């Protein structure tokens, strides 16, 4: 293999795949990045056997070849190298790197040892605008379950039909649903569950620009394609719970508050709520009074009064502060709307002017 490539392209490519390298693994080759020439370009691949990722970078290929190189060493070396172009050649499982000022030899492992990243047999592909996909990822990831006791809840549920995609996540205390409009209509309904770790990784890649992402799910596997990068991951097996039944239908109290004020009040209350499992209380009275309270037997108590528009009955309801602050951090709207029905029933939080996102949150039961 004899190739030359700009430092900039190489650093960018390695940055994309480098994170997917396996860390806690018994198989040494999983710590490596596969470098391979392919159709006049350089293909970089990494995998931890759950997620596999390929990216292609432009390069001048003089001789075809492939080798795997320890990811961390290569990444750090290329990032600190400030020469413009780097030439490299592989011989006897060693990669020779040469640039204007620097020379290095890095020992690698045979490319044949590198895991084969499975190809996804595509049935239906979803074309999603990057901006709205990224938005949906941030809003749903907050609600995924962190423990793996119910595997289906440790991921985000995708349900696509016609030209809409619904992404849903719940940890059984709260639920996020974001509707995304697809660029192209699809013929058949598709449903699948993507592990949260995969989606977090996809989100990271997406934030490096691009316009459209193509998501294709096959049996057991899903592929995300963004420009010159492809990420392949396992899917979570199982059926996502029938979540629509728990989205509240009745509303007795509607409150519109300024998100920044509300978020600040919750932050202050949660300082006092730490001891009592983050329990804070909202006291809502028409026409415009919203109080956020927290009491700690040892620390003291706090009350914040913010104004909002209240319509319907007054209510007192307790929530886990974290579940509120989580959603306020990502909701991205000047005003938020709370729809409540009783202090034991699920409440609904929406952005004031956006009906595509909803957040269901369970109240805490308060013993009076």
């Amino acid at each position, binding site marked *: 293999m004899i190739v030359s490539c700009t430092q900039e392209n190489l650093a960018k490519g390695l940055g994309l795949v480098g994170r997917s390298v396996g860390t806690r*693994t*018994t*198989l*040494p080759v*999983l710590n490596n990045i596969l470098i391979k020439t392919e159709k006049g370009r350089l293909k970089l691949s990494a*995998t931890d*056997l*759950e997620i*596999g990722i390929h990216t292609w970078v432009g390069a001048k290929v003089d001789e075809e070849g492939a080798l795997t190189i320890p990811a961390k060493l290569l990444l750090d070396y290329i990032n600190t190298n400030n020469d413009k172009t780097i030439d490299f050649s592989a011989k006897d499982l060693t990669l020779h790197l040469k640039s204007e000022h620097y020379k290095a030899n890095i020992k690698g492992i045979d490319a044949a040892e590198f*895991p*084969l*990243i*499975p190809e996804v047999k595509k049935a239906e592909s979803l074309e999603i605008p990057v901006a709205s996909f990224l938005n949906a990822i941030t809003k749903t990831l907050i609600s995924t379950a962190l423990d793996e006791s*119910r595997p*289906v809840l440790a991921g985000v549920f995708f349900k696509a039909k016609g030209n809409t995609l619904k992404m849903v996540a*719940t940890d*059984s*205390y709260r*639920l996020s649903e974001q509707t995304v409009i697809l660029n192209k209509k699809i013929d058949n309904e598709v449903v699948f569950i993507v592990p949260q770790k995969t989606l977090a990784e996809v989100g990271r890649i997406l934030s490096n620009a691009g316009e459209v992402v193509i998501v294709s799910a096959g*049996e*057991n*596997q899903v592929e995300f394609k963004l420009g010159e990068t492809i990420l392949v991951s*396992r899917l979570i*097996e*199982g*059926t996502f*719970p*029938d*979540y629509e*039944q*728990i989205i509240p239908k009745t509303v007795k109290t509607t409150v519109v508050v300024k998100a920044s004020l509300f978020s600040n009040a919750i932050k202050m209350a949660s300082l006092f709520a730490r001891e*009592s*499992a983050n*329990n*804070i*209380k909202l006291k809502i009275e028409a026409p415009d009074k919203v109080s956020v*309270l927290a*009491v*700690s*037997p040892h620390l003291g*108590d706090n*009350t914040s009064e913010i104004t909002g528009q209240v319509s319907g009955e007054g209510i007192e309801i*307790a929530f886990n502060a974290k579940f509120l602050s989580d959603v306020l951090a990502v909701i991205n709207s000047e005003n938020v709307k709370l729809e409540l029905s009783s202090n*034991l029933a*699920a409440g609904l939080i929406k952005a004031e002017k956006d009906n595509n996102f909803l957040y*269901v949150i*369970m*109240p*805490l*039961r*308060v*013993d009076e």
Partner: protein
Amino acid sequence: MKTLDEKETWQAALGELEVVFSKANYSTWFKDTFVLEIAEDEITVGVPNAFTKEWLENKYHPQIFEVLKKIHPNLKNATYAVATNSARQAPKIDSADNSDINLKPTQSYTPTQIPVADKPQPAFNLNAHYSFDNYVVGNSNRLAMATAQAVAANPGTAYNPLFIYGGVGLGKTHLVQAIGNEIIAKSPKKKIVYVSCEKFTNDFIASISDKKTNEFKKMYRDADVLMVDDIQFMAGKEGTQEEFFHTFNALHQANRQIVITSDRVPKAIPQLTDRLSSRFGMGMVADIQPPNLEMRQAILRNKCAEKQCSLTDDVIDYIAQNIESNIRELEGAITRILTYSQMNDVLPSLAITTKALEDIISNKNKIISVEKMLQMTADFFNITTVDLISAKRNKELVRPRQIVMYLMRHEMSLSYPKIGQHLNKKDHTTVIHGVEKIEKEIARDVELHKELTALKEKMHAFN
């Protein structure tokens, strides 16, 4: 039969494959694999993910096929499929998963209390579970119960301070917390401070190092009811004792109720200043003795009702007979039996009970050596073993000697002549006299009864 076959096949194959491949490769690619299906001439291998499938299919297939063919000579083909072992055992995983997400607050959260500002001061560390209603009363604790109820009815005036003492696990804490809960239920505005002695000590130390002694004083001296558990741990802590002395005086003068528990009478707490021990004794001193058999049975029945389980009479009798001195252990025994019967999916019969409680009870009945018993008795009465078995007839030696005879007779079932031999060749009639004397006195001498109980407890604990 078939499942066994599948399992065996793959076990045999894995055994060979382990030798063929390096350890790292083997553990990476063959972890969580199994045989999904064996047909006439085809085997399907289940693999945990698509990566493994690709790898086995494209790289290791020749080796795997070769190994499998050795085991099943008719084999023509081997295929690989992504599947999980658990999915195979419970193929209908989705139907179960589908039904159960309905975010009800009762299901999603353990009910937690939010104290709100305008509500009464929350009672400190009181466990609402402890009430007078679920406290089993018998001869051994009637006095303590009656005084506790009187105190709860008229805090500050009935008996102040109330000093409750008794051995480990006999319900001191239960009684004290019940007083607190009762007072709170009647007058929610009262400030009740319930602390362990350790907490009081720690708070005191912290208040000094944080220079917040005023807050400390306010916290304790504003209490309407101050309850301190296990005061004997204050022994030797002079600074804490002094602070407690002042707190005690401040509260007592203001007619606020003080309740104290300990494992022994005030006078018997070592290194406790006289002014404190005399103050502890100036109100009411009530003791809790280990429950008798009938009471233990009643307690067991009570606990069963609480746990909503039913144990047969012979099981309850058995537990009550064998666990004598500690109520906490009675409860532990029930839990143990229930867990045991649930785990093994059997009804808690007497046989099961014996089995489940094997290690707890056999410990109790284990007999300690004669030497150890002599040693412990001598230690208990602060005399030497030599004096204990000597022929000296001082009063302070005779009584322990008779007690040890009694214990040897009743706890170890030794014969009278044998006991005599152990006690420096005493005549067996001397022994009979000694044992009978203790037997007679035990009925009317409370102190003796207490000493014997304490001594027995020590010997059991030693086991």
